[in-house]
């Protein structure tokens, strides 16, 4: 019995329950697909379903990874501006850029049809108003996020500077 289980495991790579669960999942998904075919929308449905994976994994993710490395490489020299101070005593700038930019991009990603006006014709017909205020609203939100983040950075830098000055004073020999 054990030998048979071992042979199965070495052949398949996991226990029999694993295969059973996967088979059930695919059978059920197959039934759902038959309903999609019945609704006469399978081509568009399949294109959007696979397109969703491709869009996230091969477009969106490379884009924000590239954006993140750009932020990282830019914020290092930027943080060195101002009074010279050893690196360890200076708070890192990178997350004070990364977080507000990331949040603003998240809002843009979700609400792009309103912010960029793609939904304007349908929206105006249905709601009776224009989508035009959304761009300014998003810019304001992005500005507030950047402002709060910048303020926090200034505070941290000021606090780090004060600590460094105190440490230097304590370390210097008394006259």
């Amino acid at each position, binding site marked *: 019995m054990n030998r048979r289980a071992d042979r199965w495991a070495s052949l398949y790579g996991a226990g029999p329950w694993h295969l059973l669960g996967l088979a059930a999942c695919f059978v059920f998904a197959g039934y*759902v697909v038959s309903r999609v075919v019945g609704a006469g*929308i399978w081509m568009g449905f399949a294109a959007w379903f696979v397109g969703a994976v491709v869009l996230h*994994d091969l477009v969106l*993710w490379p884009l924000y990874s590239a954006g993140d490395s750009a932020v990282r490489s830019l914020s290092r020299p930027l943080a060195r501006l101002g009074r010279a101070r050893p690196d360890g005593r200076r708070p890192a700038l990178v*997350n004070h850029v990364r977080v507000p930019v990331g949040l603003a991009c998240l809002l843009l990603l979700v609400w792009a049809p309103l912010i960029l006006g793609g939904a304007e014709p349908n929206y105006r017909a249905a*709601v009776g108003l224009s989508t035009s205020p959304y761009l300014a609203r998003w810019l304001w939100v992005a500005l507030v996020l950047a402002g709060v983040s910048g303020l926090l950075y200034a505070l941290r830098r000021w606090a780090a500077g004060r600590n460094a000055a105190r440490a230097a004073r304590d370390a210097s020999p008394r006259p």
Partner: protein
Amino acid sequence: MFGLVLLVGLVIVAVTGLLSYAAYEPRLPGNDMTPGKGLLGFYLFDWPTHPVWMYRVTQGTHVILGLTLVPVLLAKLWSVIPKLFDWPPVRSIAQAVERASLVLLVGGAVFQFATGILNIQLYYVFPFSFYPAHLYGAWIFLAALALHVAVRLPRAIRAVRSRSLRRELRTSLAGTRPEPPDPDGLVPADPAPPTMSRRGLLAFVGGGSVVMLGLSVGQTLDGPLRRTALLAPRGREYGTGPNDFQINKTAASLGVTAAEAGDGWRLTVAGVDRIQLSRDDLLAMPLHTYALPIACVEGWSTEQVWTGVRLADLARLVGIAPGTAAVTARSLQRVGYFGQASLSTGQVADPRSLLALRVNGADVSLDHGFPARVIVPNAPGVHNTKWVRELDFRREAR
């Protein structure tokens, strides 16, 4: 961590979504938007008329919680994406089949979020009707999610237990150490120095959720907090008049003109008898006033004070005893979905179910359904048919 948040959150989103399916009373004629659903749109109970705010809460939760989970989903996908580029791509049959099921999981998740988010912005770029696609997409995603949880939950719990949340919240960037190697090989062998602590990442993702929630939840609220819905499709202001609340679809967009809704309009009421009523006839009947919400499938809602004739009184007028008949309301609307909607026996019998003629003390405006519109407690917004031209009561076979 993100996985467990998604597990709880997405189950709530899925259950509230399926409840919305039931709220459409799909067994009544013309109500089911997915007629070929087979076993997938099963129907368990008649949708109740109280509490009146239930659909407002469940559907608001479905949409707003979904929006709030967007950053968590993105973070979860970001944390596992190195496995996508695993080499060699397949190590065993088991792994190959499991990876295939991940197409259903990731595709389903992104598909559901994308179609829902585009739909609430009225950005209909997908080449299919939203209703069947979002229902069937949900079932494919749920099947893949159930499997994923069954296979991975023990490991997820072990991963969460391996770290104390309290200690992580006290660990700054300087104290952040790389993850020890794991059996899945997801942890990089030679990681770059960290630029963000684990608590920093949690704050970043949680901050994203707070921003999404804070800028959209206002469209489910009334009063001054509604103005906080800066980035949400339906938190808009029209003015300060009695009819200046959110319009779902304007009369013009559905081909309804002021002329046909004017003095020549007559309401046909059909039951045992068939009669025609003018707006003055309706105003001469006993009028009742209730504060009832309009709660849209798109997740926005607002409560207003409606005055009108009870549907039950109109049923009696054509020889139907309330509690014995369902009704189909037909609209002047020429184009688009929901030119008619059927209400259940229970909905007709509820004394708060009105054919509303006034709102907040004024005549309902053309965009809100003049000369008369249905308003039913706890029903999805689109079942409150506007510009009603006919009420067709039919006895239910028992």
